[in-house]
């Protein structure tokens, strides 16, 4: 293909222009993208600080209230006893009663046939933990399973044929009691995994039962001795 000088230069100029425009286009696209990313990363930390602020201000109000009680000259021992009672309640070393839910889970009475997975016929520790998580999320005030109060130290650990809870061996059926607003508790439960258990119930015959009770009694938990942790001053 033969071209004279003018044609060649024309084509050259056009190509250069094309390339130039292309680069500018790419760059502007990139700029717009990166800015969006920066903005997005700032959002979670903002939410985080906001939430922390809220928690802190609630806590501060509580402290202020307590301080004002001291200032008013209330009997120190009464106050300390009050606090002790509150702390015991929070830590779960006092038995409680109130309206709540009772959830019963049991292994299937039917054995796995042929290709069926025998694991789908048993209640696993994960289901129990998932239910706890849902109940706490739904604002549960106290939870117990098979008479074991769920406290900060409670483990729900699969140990072969049984589940270890609070260091005790627990076998099915698992009866979970929870005190709280029964409507929100049920709603939270249904939001998290309750239907999957329903499938297991229909297909494999496990027991999944939910009762709303006017009065549930939840026993006290045991206080464990701490050997490593010591109280520390708050702050950096």
């Amino acid at each position, binding site marked *: 293909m033969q071209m004279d000088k003018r044609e060649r230069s024309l084509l050259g100029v056009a190509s250069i222009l094309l390339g130039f425009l292309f680069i500018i286009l790419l760059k*502007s696209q990139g700029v717009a993208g990166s800015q969006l990313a920066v903005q997005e990363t700032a959002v979670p930390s903002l939410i985080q600080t906001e939430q922390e602020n809220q928690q802190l201000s609630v806590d501060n109000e509580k402290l202020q209230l307590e*301080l004002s009680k001291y200032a008013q000259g209330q009997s120190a021992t009464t106050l300390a006893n009050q606090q002790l009672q509150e702390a015991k309640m929070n830590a779960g070393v006092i038995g409680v009663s109130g309206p709540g839910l009772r959830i019963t889970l049991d292994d299937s009475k039917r054995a796995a046939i042929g290709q069926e997975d025998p694991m789908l016929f048993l209640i696993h520790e994960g289901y129990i933990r998932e239910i706890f998580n849902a109940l706490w999320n739904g604002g549960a005030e106290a939870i117990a399973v098979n008479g074991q109060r769920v406290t900060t130290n409670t483990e729900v650990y699969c140990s072969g044929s049984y589940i270890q809870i609070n260091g005790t061996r627990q076998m099915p059926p698992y009866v979970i009691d929870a005190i709280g607003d029964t409507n929100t508790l049920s709603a939270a439960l249904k939001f998290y995994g309750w239907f999957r258990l329903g499938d297991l119930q229909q297909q494999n015959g496990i027991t999944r039962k939910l009762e709303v009770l006017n009065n549930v*009694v939840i026993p006290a938990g045991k206080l464990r001795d701490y*050997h490593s942790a010591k109280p*520390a001053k708050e702050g950096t």
Partner: protein
Amino acid sequence: MKRWHRTLALPVTMVAIALGFLISIQAQTQKNVSAAEQISADRMTQMKSVLSNSLAQNTKLQTDHRVLLEQLDAARKKVGTDPQLLAELAQLQMVEGTQAVEGPGILISIDDRDKKVPFPLGTDDLATIINTLKFAGAEAISINGQRVIGSTAIVLSGSSTILVNEVPINRTEGIPYELMVIGDQDTLFDYFSKLEAPNLKLGGMTVSISRKTLKIASYKGTYTFKQAKPLTP
């Protein structure tokens, strides 16, 4: 224009069309981009001011918190409460989590940012880890600074934000997950490294465990009992 070769007509036309097309796109994007830049810059400055505001508020609240705690301590000492009662209270408050604690323990760092991680660390994984640590006798646990107490729920908000005690714990930079655990160092180390770490590593995550003396912050939320009544007054 006779001198133009016919063979050249097609490529030149194509180039001309492409050029025209690009120029029009360019003009459009340039307009869009400058507008977007403007909006984005505005938003950024607004966001920054909001963020710095809330950060300032945060530091103020934290100092307030410290001051109040100190005043309370002083007030308690002044009125002279039974030391045994106070010790019991401190013990209970460590359990319920409203007391910051320090002591020997392990620091676990989990990094799931690698591209070869098919499933990033989820709420179930965190719950399993916490459960194993409790099994190992942990006395205090925190995830990215949030104290884990009995009633702590670990849930997902949206598609990727993890809430612990209703506070998002996701980090935008640095190690994504840091768990602080106080308890018997050997047991914690043993249980975690044998029961949990292998699974996480199998999932492509980077896991590191170190023995340290740690300080774990208190639980900042509140316990509320609206329905539950104590059995023994």
